[in-house]
């Protein structure tokens, strides 16, 4: 028994829970296991999932970026304004991505050069980027984006032969890349080192500042990309797009067992966290469970996810003490 408990980590447990919810949903709810529903449910998490990838790396490195949803809004507003001005969509995308990188670099610069904590910096840029979004597009809503691209982002268009919509397929590829970077490279190990003990990492020769800067830039890039996906998916560019999304992203990452204090976590766990919240919301909506209850369920899951590792650790310490006693 003890042997198995040792292998049951939080993230594998979460994976098992995800499968259990999927099976329970398929058994209990008509229409849940259908491919169109799974496509729609998956696609509803697209932006959260995409941003959760760099966010996982950031949190592992002991940082956080609260400005991601505002960057999503800024990217969406910019895309809308440029589209309205008659720009080609193929040109709008790189411009938005560039703005995302610049926004991320600003966050990173303030953290690494000015030496401010990332929480404080990104609370500031959260307001700044959302404000810029309102300046760029004002109160307007821009629609009528090209059908070909809108189709790409919609859940009805899937990778041939599967029920996976394109934004999620892209997410899957990027998740593998992020997992390899985090768990199989020196760069990834450096993130764990920074998150666990920044000073020690620095003395050990880890380029702390550069790594942080790169992580913030990548996060900005993904947030602006998510802004384009969001705009296409809803066919509506607005300055208030994705309002409050940063909390869902961080909640999913924490639910995935990534330690908010840094230094601990797996990418697989974070992905399971994102998918679990998405699948649960879909399942509850299909069963006509009200929105308020959905929020409570997600909140409860989050609290459990923060508490459980703590409880396990305390129990483990006790057992050790008992066995160590003469």
């Amino acid at each position, binding site marked *: 028994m003890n042997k198995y408990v040792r292998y049951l980590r939080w993230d594998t447990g979460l994976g098992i829970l995800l499968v259990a919810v999927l099976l329970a949903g398929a058994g209990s709810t008509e229409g849940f296991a259908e491919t169109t529903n799974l496509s729609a449910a998956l696609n509803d998490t697209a932006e959260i999932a995409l941003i959760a990838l760099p966010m996982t790396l950031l949190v592992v490195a002991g940082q956080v970026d609260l400005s991601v949803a505002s960057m999503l809004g800024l990217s969406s507003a910019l895309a809308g304004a440029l589209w309205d001005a008659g720009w080609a969509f193929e040109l709008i995308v790189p411009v938005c991505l560039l703005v995302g990188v610049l926004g991320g670099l600003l966050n990173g610069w303030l953290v690494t050069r000015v030496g401010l904590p990332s929480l404080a910096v990104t609370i500031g840029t959260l307001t700044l980027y959302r404000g810029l979004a309102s300046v760029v597009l004002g109160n307007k809503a821009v*629609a009528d984006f090209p059908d070909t691209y809108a189709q790409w982002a919609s859940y009805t268009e899937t990778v041939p032969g599967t029920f996976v919509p394109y934004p999620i397929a892209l997410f899957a590829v990027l998740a593998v890349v992020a997992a390899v970077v985090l768990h199989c490279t020196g760069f990834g190990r450096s993130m764990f080192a920074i998150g666990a003990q920044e000073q020690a990492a620095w003395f050990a020769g880890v380029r702390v500042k550069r790594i942080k800067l790169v992580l913030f830039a990548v996060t900005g890039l993904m947030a602006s990309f998510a802004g384009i996906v*969001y705009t296409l998916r809803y066919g509506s560019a607005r300055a208030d797009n994705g309002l409050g999304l940063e909390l869902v992203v961080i909640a999913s990452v924490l639910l995935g067992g990534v330690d908010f204090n840094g230094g601990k976590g797996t990418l697989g766990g974070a992905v399971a966290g994102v998918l679990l919240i998405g699948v649960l919301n879909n399942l509850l909506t299909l069963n006509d469970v009200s929105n308020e209850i959905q929020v409570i369920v997600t909140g409860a899951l989050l609290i459990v996810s923060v508490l459980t590792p703590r409880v396990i650790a305390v129990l483990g310490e006790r057992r050790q003490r008992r066995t160590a006693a003469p």
Partner: protein
Amino acid sequence: MRPHTRTRFRTRFRTRTVAATAVVCALSVALAGCSGTTKDDAKDDAANAKEDAQNAKADPDAPLKKGLKLAFLPKQINNPYEKIVDEAGIKAAEEYDGEAKEVGPSDAKASSQVSYINTLVQQRQDAILIAANDPNAVCGPLKQAMKQDIKVVAYDSDTSKDCRQLFINQASSEDIGRSLVQHTAEQLGHKGQIAILSATQNATNQNAWIEFMKDELKKPAYKDMKLVKTAYGDDDDQKSFQETQGLLKAYPKLKAIISPTTVGIAAAARYIGGSSYKGKVVLNGLGTPNQMRKYVKNGTVEQFSLWDPEKLGYLASYAAAALASGQITGKEGERFKAGELGERTVGKDGEVILGPPTVFDKKNIDDFDF
């Protein structure tokens, strides 16, 4: 001893940044060069992709089907006004042996409605009735619903025209907009600064009314009245309250606020009623009698308007049933029977109008309970 020097970091970083920027720029220029997609191309696309769902034939003599499944999707689930509309629609469904329910998000965000539409399609409802938070953001999934032969009826706040078969309009937008200005002007003696406190910036109904208000104000009779600002309370009680406070602070000469939203007018009445502006600033707009009763009785508000939301839900429910039973398809001139409201005709662009708004004041407010 530093493990790595700053200069090395800088130069390496710079070269890489420059290289990366160059690549991005080259890529974007290349992409833009080879036939980009612009707004004008997209318009053609949209025109070509028009739904042919309306090509179906209507059978005016078809009986209402039994056991129809209808779902009301309001802008926001805890909005008291929408609750009244939806509950009346749900009750109406009992009359024709249908089964109706209300589902929806707890915030009035455009994107929140989308996942609900998707699940309603999955639940194979016969009709979806929606009060849209954004006419475009809900369009894709609604078209998807219509493709699967689910009827779509917009009520209260319209979607884009090609994303629904019918729009149940409370009263004509023109009637509402103009009459609100006319009533307010009478209260003011046609003189003074006025402001509008609206809901969200993209609410279709609000914006249509505001356009007619502005148009009415252009007439010579209102030459001494000036619209100084349109504020947005986002149908959020707290925000509407603060916006009212802000308006009165920013424009000391403000004489009237028109709030064409039930959340907005109630919040504004709460602020004005508890301040020194009570009795000095006119508040008019659209509200429900139960919400506004105490402000009418204590003299904060003299009058306000609304249609009967119960009748709106009732009409929407019957219209959806008529669509789902094949009596109508949403074309202009088609007629259907809406229970005790009698026969209604589908107007231009699939619009069905409930009737002119009712004015509530001290004299008649106790006759209503909603």
